[in-house]
């Protein structure tokens, strides 16, 4: 065995670290696509623990077991975007800026900025007109939609975001954090504790 000088050994170690880091990074950004969730996971996703007030709560174990795909997976987010239009969310919430229903990108969340709250709002409905989608969508679809709505209201662009649409859209693409661009706090500043977490 040939003895390499220290510099060489250091360099090869550095090379190995770089390759491993690349692998780890891509591994972290891994985006497997599932089109049909096995029923146990479906059931598990429904298992959210909501606070008594209906605001905030803990995601179910299945969510963590799956690697939190609904916040970080751009495929899930783009599915959420499609569900947003298929299930007629735009009828009340417009392109995200609100209509009959509240806006998602004004820095203000009636029921808090947490993903679980959004899931609960979609699943169970809310007073003043938000219908429950429990019987219309499967659990993973609700999560996908919730993830998309949350990304819509994010204040800073996230790596995983659906791309822009290939049509004329009045709001900036989701990957450019429309809330950050469009939000106008106006005379009264927004509530920092209620602002969406990026």
């Amino acid at each position, binding site marked *: 065995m040939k003895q390499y000088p220290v510099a060489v050994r250091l360099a090869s170690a550095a090379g190995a670290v770089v390759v491993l880091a690349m692998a780890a990074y891509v591994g972290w950004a891994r985006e497997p*696509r599932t*089109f*049909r969730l096995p029923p146990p996971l479906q059931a598990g996703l429904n298992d959210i623990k909501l606070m008594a007030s209906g605001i905030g709560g803990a995601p179910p174990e299945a969510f963590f077991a799956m690697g939190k795909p609904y916040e970080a997976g751009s495929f899930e987010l783009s599915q959420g975007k*499609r*569900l947003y*239009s*298929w*299930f*007629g969310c735009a009828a009340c919430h417009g392109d995200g800026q609100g209509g009959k229903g509240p806006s998602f990108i004004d820095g203000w969340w009636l029921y808090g900025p947490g993903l679980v709250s959004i899931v609960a709002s979609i699943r169970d409905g809310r007073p003043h007109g938000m219908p429950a989608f429990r*019987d*219309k*969508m*499967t659990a993973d*679809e609700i999560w996908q939609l919730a993830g998309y709505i949350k990304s819509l209201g994010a204040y800073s662009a996230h790596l995983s975001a659906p791309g822009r649409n*290939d049509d004329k859209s009045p709001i900036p693409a989701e990957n450019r954090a429309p809330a950050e661009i469009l939000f106008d706090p106006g005379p009264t500043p927004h509530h920092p504790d209620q602002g969406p977490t990026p």
Partner: protein
Amino acid sequence: MRSKLNLRAGGLLLALPLCGCNGTQSALHAEGQAATALKGLILLIVLVCALVWIAVVGVLFWALLRRRTEFAAGNKIHDHRLRLAVYSALAATAIIVAGLTVASFYATRALYSSHPPDVIVQAKAQQWWWQFTYADSENRPLFQTANELHIPVGKDVLITLEALDVIHSLWIPALAGKQDMIPGRRNEQRLHAERQGIYRGQCAEFCGIQHSHMALVVVAEDEDDYAAWLAEQQKPAADPITAEAEAGRAVFLGKPCAACHTIRGTAAKGSTGPDLTHIGSRQTLGAGLLPVTRGSLAAWIADPQTLKPGNNMPLVPLSSDEVRQVSAYLEGLR
């Protein structure tokens, strides 16, 4: 030689019973004007090329195996003769190629017609199904249907081609060559069926995860059948006749089905998915995936993502009774 043999093999294969429920999908089984012209050209070029190939390989083997009297490198007379042979082979190539080129220009001419068409159908492709809109003589849309095109035999049918999301390509090989459908552009395709029959077509441009399951059926029928079909399709959906189907309609309208699908004559007015007004009269479901039967309708509604993974129909949570009812209702929509 190989090409010829295989052509024969291809012919044999064609003789097998392919004209099953899904119709033929083969460029060599031409039933339309354009496809017949193309088939003639294909056979001509293949034949000429097969002969050329045989000639070249024959010369190669001759050159390899011929008896050599002496080693004649640099032999001036020899080189001169070789040069003559090469240049005449080149001249022959030029003549053959020019012939084939002009033949293909003539075939191109045959594909195009400036006559006004007898029927105009608007086709819009989307991931992963086809939408067809029939119009009246004033070009007002009459009705929509999906994944199934009916055309009268012996008439010129103009299909206008548009894509709603990504690029697709309409290809019905038994009737005509393919033509792309590109977002932001409008293309045209002419069909002219010479014989009655059912012809299968398929998307030819890679369009995403379910590109493989984006087929369509073309029904070429005589004038009367076509007129009857048109009349039938223009009617709104039939009312359910059984109690089960009645319940199915209620489920369909109450659940998100109606958000994406239209059933004319009911409150269902969604435009994301295919128009289901006469789904029961169609041959296939899921863009050529399954024949329309009650069982396949139920299977599709219960679990579209297993049958066609990644397609755009979201799973709607229904109880097994509800699935049965909806499938009964849809099957009755003839």
